[in-house]
């Protein structure tokens, strides 16, 4: 094993400090006794308690989760369908245009997406609320899903689908029984991506949210404008905790799966 040189140690420290120092400070101050964010006055968990009393935050959190689940599910269905058609549909008129257009929202400034959605909702007389945020989030996260799924489909062995057809499946059955189970990991990661994008989003949500429904990012942003409260630090710490648990368990699961796969293949090679 190489020992770390002083240069490597320094760059490692600097890099990680750059990434994590802001979050560490936030977590530390969430346990601050004082109401003043910048003055340390001893350890306390009282802001977590107060957070649980705060109806407005809890409502916003609930709306956020609801929107994220609904929009990412919708985006996954639509995005997977789009990816399948673009990768498998063969040549049809306007295919190049379509495949270019599906990726356009990736580079489109969010402000423009938000504004145009707002104009659309006003135009068709749709009251702004949970429904409009869900629709807006589906619109922009769908293309992320289709990018993830189509890159999986491109490496997918086409003969598997042909084998299913050959053995008596209709094209839909072949998709449901063979393609979908095999690309499921990509579909799931597409869903997770859409889910996190929806949780994060501030810009598009602020265009499409109405007085009846606000998401957590909007709530936090408007609260901070009135001054940072330790309650928000507590809320952010909880969110960091949830994300950390999610990421660690996802990587543990995938590591375990690849280990099992490796073991199986070695066993197969031995019995051959």
């Amino acid at each position, binding site marked *: 094993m190489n020992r770390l040189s002083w240069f490597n140690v320094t760059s490692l420290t600097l890099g990680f400090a750059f990434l994590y120092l802001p979050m560490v400070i936030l977590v530390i101050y969430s346990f601050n006794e004082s109401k003043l964010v910048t003055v340390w006055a001893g350890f306390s968990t009282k802001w977590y308690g107060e957070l649980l009393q705060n109806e407005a935050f809890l409502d916003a959190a609930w709306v956020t989760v609801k929107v994220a689940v609904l929009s990412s599910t919708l985006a996954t269905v639509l995005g997977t369908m789009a990816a399948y058609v673009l990768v498998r549909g063969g040549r049809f008129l306007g295919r190049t245009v379509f495949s270019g257009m599906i990726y356009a929202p990736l580079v489109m400034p969010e402000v423009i997406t938000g504004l145009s959605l707002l104009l659309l909702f006003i135009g068709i007389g749709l009251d702004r609320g949970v429904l409009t945020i869900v629709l807006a989030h589906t619109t922009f996260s769908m293309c992320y899903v289709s990018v993830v799924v189509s890159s999986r489909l491109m490496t997918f062995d086409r*003969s598997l689908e*042909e084998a*299913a*057809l*050959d053995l008596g499946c209709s094209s839909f059955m072949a998709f449901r029984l063979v393609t979908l189970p*095999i690309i499921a990991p990509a579909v799931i990661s597409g869903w997770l991506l859409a889910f996190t994008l929806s949780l994060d989003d501030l810009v598009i949500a602020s265009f499409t949210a109405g007085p009846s429904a606000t998401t957590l990012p909007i709530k936090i942003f408007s609260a901070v404008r009135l001054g940072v409260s330790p309650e928000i630090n507590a809320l952010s710490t909880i969110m960091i905790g949830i994300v950390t648990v999610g990421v660690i368990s996802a990587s543990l699961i995938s590591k375990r799966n690849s280990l099992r796969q490796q073991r199986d*293949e070695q066993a*197969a090679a031995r019995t*051959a």
Partner: protein
Amino acid sequence: MNQTVFAPWDDPAEKPLIRFENVTKRFGEFVAIDDLTLDIFEKEFFALLGPSGCGKTTMMRMLAGFETPTEGRIELAGQDIAPVPPNKRAVNMMFQSYALFPHLSVYENIAFGLRRGDMPKNDIDDRVGEMLKLTRLEKFARRKPHQISGGQRQRVALARSLAKAPKLLLLDEPLGALDAKLRQATQFELMDIQEKTGTTFVIVTHDQEEAMTVASRVAVMDEGRVMQVATPERIYEAPSSVYVADFIGDVNIVGGSTKPAGAGQYHVHWAEGQAPFMAASDRAFSDGQACHLAVRPEKIAISAERPSDAENAVQGTVLDIAYLGNLSTYHVELPGGQIIKAQTANTQRISRRSFTWEDPVWVSWTATAGVLLEQ
């Protein structure tokens, strides 16, 4: 048992199972199959042999239903199959990559096709059991494809494609992924299974030895056309063109012109100032017609003295010796630069080899050893 030779292609009353009628397939400008007509009979083990890009895979995909002919007709048991989608054809295919479903067990892979019909559960179970037994996979039924070896995967793919008892089984380079030893064993296994099930097999391969071993008839293809369709023996011993002769096995080709010498015998003038070769031919050649004489290296003898009774004998020097263990191939340069390959079986140990580099030797063969070809 009645010992009749299996040769339905020689019986004009026999109806073919598959009939290609003037089939052409184009992909844009590219002609993959060029006006091809071909009959394949029931219970045949038919091999499509050719280099990559010769159209053999396209033919197979048209039979499976993944491609449709641009022109012409393909009949299966007298029915035009162009309008029949792949999932409604009594044809199954074994894919080159095996295309096993990775998320299903060996058992479920084999049962996959059966479950698509309205077969009762018990019958499915029986049929899968039968297939597992046929391919000796009983022990692996619960394993996933990545938990078994390459040879076992190949047998799962075969079992899966045979499970529905198709009229026709298509095999796309079925042994390509196996190593040489396993491939040989599997070739005999395939023939055995084909005989047991009585299914018509069409195999696509670029491996001439494999085609010769397994097939009842071989179609040699080149650039979308069938060059010759015949039994392996006839393909080897009586090729119809230089291309076929050259593609199958090793061959010496000597260019020249013919002079009839009566009774199906011809003199082949191959070089200025050299005695002509004698060759017998069923095909008629005119005086002075350009021709190619094709002689297999194992039919050419090599000796130190001129053999007294040889119909064709010519002197040259040993240019190269390829030692293959069981055989040695001598490359002998004739006056004028023509190189003749002569093969001898190494029945003695190498230390007692009689010729070495630069030795003057005589190569000789009979008049019937070679084949006279127009092109």
